[in-house]
């Protein structure tokens, strides 16, 4: 199904949890913050949050800045 990750369309299989998704991309959940349809998803519920069709997901992390 189609979802939007960081503004780009992607195809993922159904019944994927956010945690599964991060793991599949080798992204450590402790190093990022995830927003699902503009709601921040706390780390402890990433495993229980199942991605739906056309969800907009933002994955953000800290970078250098002043």
């Amino acid at each position, binding site marked *: 199904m189609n979802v939007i990750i960081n503004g780009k369309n992607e195809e993922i299989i159904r019944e994927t949890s956010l945690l599964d998704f991060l793991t599949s991309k080798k992204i450590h959940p402790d190093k990022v913050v995830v927003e699902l349809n503009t709601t921040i998803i706390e780390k402890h519920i990433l495993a229980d949050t199942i991605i739906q069709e056309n969800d907009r997901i933002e994955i953000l992390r*800290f970078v250098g*800045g002043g």
Partner: protein
Amino acid sequence: MDDLLEIGDKKLESRLFTGTGKYGSDALIPEIIKESGAQVITVALRRMNPDSEEDNILDYIPKTIQLLPNTSGARNSNEAVRIARLARAAGCGNWIKIEVISDNKYLLPDGYETIRATEILVKEGFVVLPYISPDLMVARALVNAGAAAVMPLGAPIGSNRGLKTRELIRILIDEIDLPIIVDAGIGKPSQACEAMEMGAAACLVNTAIASAENPVLMGKAFGRAVKAGREAYLAGPGSTSSHAVASSPLTGFLNGNESQEEN
């Protein structure tokens, strides 16, 4: 000698804050933290690229250092609030530097939007450090909103031009009852020293260190400069040589017949 800077619930020994932006290599960051003595470091929040293996900046920052995420990228208070909440959810504390910039030419901050974001975020329990032009009215509004400090710019971001706004910063130091942290524009350690001598609580220096030929050495120099300036401020400068006295005396009449006897 207890001259700790209290912000939120932290008591800081070092009054040099530094940033993580503009480095040729992020590997320099831990060295700079060590040599400069900085205990507070700014970071920004950006989208991750899921398809590439990127180092995480947090790997370069010791766990004992206080992270100060900024809301860079925000063009209005809503965006700033959103970024702040994301930063907190990323799990690195509740400090936030509000940076709301919708001016891409000079990167000057928007005072109104900054005040609005501060009001919202203070209520949500953040320790808010807003970045502003040194405007006394804006600073007063930030005090009322519950900001933990005020961060006036010395000169536009990245300009390294020094304390162009020193008179206005001086007014903030005199009038505002919060730590005044000079942020942006400091290009040389002597300028950081000057800010501290004036009574600033701390300085945030990023570009001047990152863009130096030897950033680690420059970081060390800034650490010392901030310390020197602070000690000079605490020592209380003595009197300089006497100034010239104008030609016609104004109080000569007091040496003549005093009319106070009539009273």
